[in-house]
């Protein structure tokens, strides 16, 4: 096993060690979005745009747009944080 304290030289006592915390905001966002997609996959809604039912439109085309926009939002947020 390697000496991880090499990466934590700021303090050597056990009390000062900083442990990782699960990224709950990301988990909650992921699962809310996926839960919505599951819901729209399983229900039947009235006809919407492009000759498709609303739920088909949401879970097929709209979801791709949300995916790419939120992903780049995440990358942009991290870049701003780093700068």
């Amino acid at each position, binding site marked *: *096993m*390697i000496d*991880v*304290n090499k*990466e*934590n030289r700021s303090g050597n006592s056990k009390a000062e*060690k*900083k*442990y*990782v915390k*699960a*990224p709950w905001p*990301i*988990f909650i966002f*992921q699962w809310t979005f*996926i839960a919505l*997609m*599951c819901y*729209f*996959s*399983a*229900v*039947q809604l009235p006809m919407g745009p*492009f*000759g*498709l*039912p609303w*739920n*088909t439109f949401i*879970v*097929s*085309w709209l*979801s*791709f747009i949300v*995916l*790419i926009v939120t*992903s*780049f939002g*995440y*990358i942009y947020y*991290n870049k701003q944080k*780093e700068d």
Partner: protein
Amino acid sequence: MGGNQLTYLIIILLYLAGMFLLGIYMSKKVKSSANYYTSDRDMGATITGFSYSATQMSAGTVMGMPGTGHALGYNYVPGNFASAAAPWFSYLSIGERMRKVCERINAIDYGDVFKHRYGSAAQDIYSLVIMLFYIPLIIAQFKAAGDIMQSIAGVPYLIGLFLIGGVIIIYTLSGGMFAVAWSDLIQGIIMMLGVAALAIMALNKAGGFTEINHTLASFDPRLIKTTGFVTGTWAVCNILSWSFLQIGGSASAVVRFLIPKDLKTLRNAFGYSIVFQVVVFSSTAIIGPAGRVLLPNLEKTDQLVPLLINSLFHPIIGGIVVSGIIAAMMSTVDSVLLLCSSVATNGVYLKYVDQNASPDQQLKIGRIATVAIGLISIALAIKPFSAIQWMVAFSFNVMAAAFTVPVLYTVWWPRASKTGGTLGMASGLVTALIWYYLGYTMFGSFSEWPFGIWPGIIGTFVSFIVTTGVSLMTAPPDQEIIDTFYLE
């Protein structure tokens, strides 16, 4: 051989020659077993992102998905979206932590990670599952490659199989992860441009979105629904499996988190992966329904993509698109081959045969394993057993059930114990296998299961209960393990 077939063949041969030369060139960079499998952890964001996604996409993505879309219409499109969302789960849920942990323990795959986190038995389960369930996936891709060479380029099945199989083995053997990652980038770009061009042409020829959807509804109103031919439970399992379960089910793709030079590069690689996946999976989602409108009476849906290429493109462009389909297979096979080789070397040879092997010996063993696994897979693909395509979904479900929860806990839950992690892995694996058995005894099919719940989903659920419950009932891991895996 017709004029189109000859043009396709020339372009495919040029592409294969390029891959061959790439492998020879990259062989100069290979110095040791460690850099053979991880490329010195020095890759850039573009290569990492494309390599992750190209590995995840296979013949099933570019041939199978449009074919299923032809048969089921929009019923399968949520699966396309879920596959495109896979990086969302793998990169954002485990990517950065896994990269950090692997660097600390100098791991080259999940097997190393499991050994340090949960103990030797967990690594053995991992090695067993990879060797048992990934080799059928290589065989299935080889078979698809032989079939495509036969149906599109007019080359006899065996010649196509040996040609493509041989090139993959040579460049993986020579250049290891360097060749695999670079070839994935090239293959990924060809694949992305190919399927996007096919989608645009098919969409245009079929009259646009609204026209396609109206025509589909006139054929059968179920084609434009998400649950016309499938149940709501099936639709939910479809989304969960192809998005969240990729964490455990795509071990060969997730090892890409070990190759970028730093965490910032990994984060940027996520952007490339998302773009690549959205383009490919939205394109395949268009090709299926558009293909149904253009070729409504197709008997074998697997033939949809070859027929569309023949009818929509000039032979030279068609040849490039066909190369994109072959690229999809090759990018999966090279990565799986390399992973199986690392398991054979690291999880079997170094563990049970010679623990003191020198770096040179380790590299030699790795290369011998690559050739041996590749040749065995080619030999088995000469006359593949009939259930080979079914084995692809089977291997994904089994691996997802075994690994997803233990992997997540490896980076986020310090309380997960050695016994909990090992039993969680074993219970997920056994549950998925039992679920397949129950489905077969109840419905006489390996594609139908009790309550319509997919084996990967039920296996992951049981693995979650067992890993969590057993961990809380047994002693927590040593402080050294907690520090290694969970210190920031």
